[in-house]
């Protein structure tokens, strides 16, 4: 089964991960701009990071036949330094017009401070201006309250609900999101947050409409194969194939296609891998026997 991991931070992952993901059937990914484990102190770091998402990371993915898209934003964890946030916000319009960018994100709340809210709102407005969907991160701490506040902001701004994906849901927040027109993301983690079995139970209870799952793998203990592993668990628990495919392919594809930068027909076919050229000591493939497809 062809799968889509709509939230994974490949910048912090290895080519071994890319190879394993491709092998497991993952054909397309979205890498949201987030933080890197430690706050950055310069806007220039964000520029280099965004350039990396749109250049180097996209190329790394292509070497394994995986289509790489990204979202661009100032994340809430780094939204509290006013000097830095102004500069980052100023550079965003340049990036929001690029073809690999399928949403504004991750935006949302972390500590639920006033400055987070201000930047959340400003970036929602930018998404409206550039006709892009938004990927909304919900906080780890005080999650339910953060989810309610996020939904309230979507509604009060008149943001089109079908273009908002509210992520990292749990048993308690999912029904709140499904009561709106927003999409509901779930991050499947090793041993914590949401796991495969709990996810499968939620699908049994709520169905597949507007339900999305992801691995959110990054620099922490996480697993880039959580989407395929959850597929296995859903099968084991008797969820129909059509629902599984909706959740791990059609839903994320349809959601991000709203950006105009993800073509549903294009992503149905895997891009050709051409690794013949990669013999350089500095390329991802350092002289390994190349895979060539015609």
């Amino acid at each position, binding site marked *: 089964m062809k799968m889509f991991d709509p939230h994974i931070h490949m910048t912090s992952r290895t080519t071994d991960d890319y190879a394993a993901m491709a092998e497991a059937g993952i054909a397309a990914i979205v890498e949201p701009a987030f933080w890197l484990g430690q*706050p950055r102190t310069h806007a220039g770091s964000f520029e280099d990071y965004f350039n990396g998402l749109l250049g180097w990371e996209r190329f790394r993915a292509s070497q394994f036949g995986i289509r790489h898209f990204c979202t661009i934003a100032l994340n809430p964890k780094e939204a*509290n330094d006013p000097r830095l946030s102004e500069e980052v916000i100023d550079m965003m319009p340049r990036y929001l017009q690029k073809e690999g960018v399928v949403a504004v994100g991750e935006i949302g709340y972390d500590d639920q401070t006033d400055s987070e809210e201000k930047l959340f709102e400003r970036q929602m407005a930018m998404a409206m201006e550039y006709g892009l969907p938004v990927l909304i991160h919900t906080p780890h*701490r005080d999650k*339910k309250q953060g989810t309610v506040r996020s939904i309230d902001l979507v509604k009060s701004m008149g943001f089109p609900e079908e273009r908002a994906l509210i992520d990292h849901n749990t048993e308690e927040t999912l029904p709140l999101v499904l009561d709106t027109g927003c999409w509901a993301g779930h991050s499947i983690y090793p041993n914590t947050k949401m796991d495969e079995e709990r996810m499968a139970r939620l699908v049994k209870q709520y169905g597949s409409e507007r339900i999305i799952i992801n691995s959110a793998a990054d620099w922490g203990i996480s697993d880039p194969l959580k989407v395929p592993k959850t597929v296995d668990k859903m099968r084991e628990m008797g969820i129909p194939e059509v629902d599984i495919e909706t959740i791990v392919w059609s839903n994320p594809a349809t959601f991000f296609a709203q950006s105009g930068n993800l073509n549903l027909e294009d992503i149905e076919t895997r891009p050709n891998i051409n690794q013949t050229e990669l013999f350089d000591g500095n390329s991802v493939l350092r002289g390994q026997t190349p895979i060539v497809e015609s």
Partner: protein
Amino acid sequence: MKQHLHDLLRARAGGDALAWLEKALAATTPPVHHNTLLGYYSGASRRMGKRALNLSQQEQARGETLDAELALSHWGADEAARALLLLTLAEQLPPEEFAELARRCYELGDSREQESWLRGLGPLPDCARFLASAVDACRTNIIPVFEAIACENPYPLRVFPEANFNQLILKSLFNGIALERIVGLEARLNASLSRMSDDYVSEREAAGRTVPTDIWLVLAPHIAGEGLVRVHRYLSHEDPAHRYWAALGLGHHANGESREALRARAALEREPRVKAALDGALARMG
């Protein structure tokens, strides 16, 4: 405090280290070359070592007259030297220049430097001006850095607004950090914190996961309705740690609603530590 730190270091450091320290302190005389100062701030770990100060009884007593809540005994020699350097700079530089340089010490610090900086915040003059950096430090994933601001540090108690203080408590719970390590927690209990903690317990229970046993200390005081029923349930939990902290938390409850539940439990309780907590809570209610 400056004098005290200087004396503590003089009583411990060797000749080379002290010579280095005096050179570093001399570099605080204006005009201050910022990069040089940043170099000294970094160099402290290598030059002064990281051994804990381990105060004598007499030193401890003197420290307590200066600031009863500062855990100087656990500070490393390097950390004391860094705090001394900043305190000296604060006297030498105009406030704005000092604040700017002090912030750079934090921003450019490795983990140990950031820990030292956070531990040394309280004694700085007008320390509230560094609130933004201290709050930012709470976002770190580097647990020792988080502990440096959250644990055994009076700064959050004295300076953090309620929302930031509550986030600090919640993050401590997430990270399995014992709430006992947060200075002055009982003075900062509040209704929002009870509500947030209660939501967290609901989320954990819905996910079929365990709950930190000391959460009741911050959850119980301002809870009502179903949340209070849940605390009463944990008051009879098979894990005595739950019973202990539930009793302690209920002792801070704003009204007497829990008196019956505490009495009923006290009649059954066999664990001496829990029994004492139950009795203590009942006594608080009068």
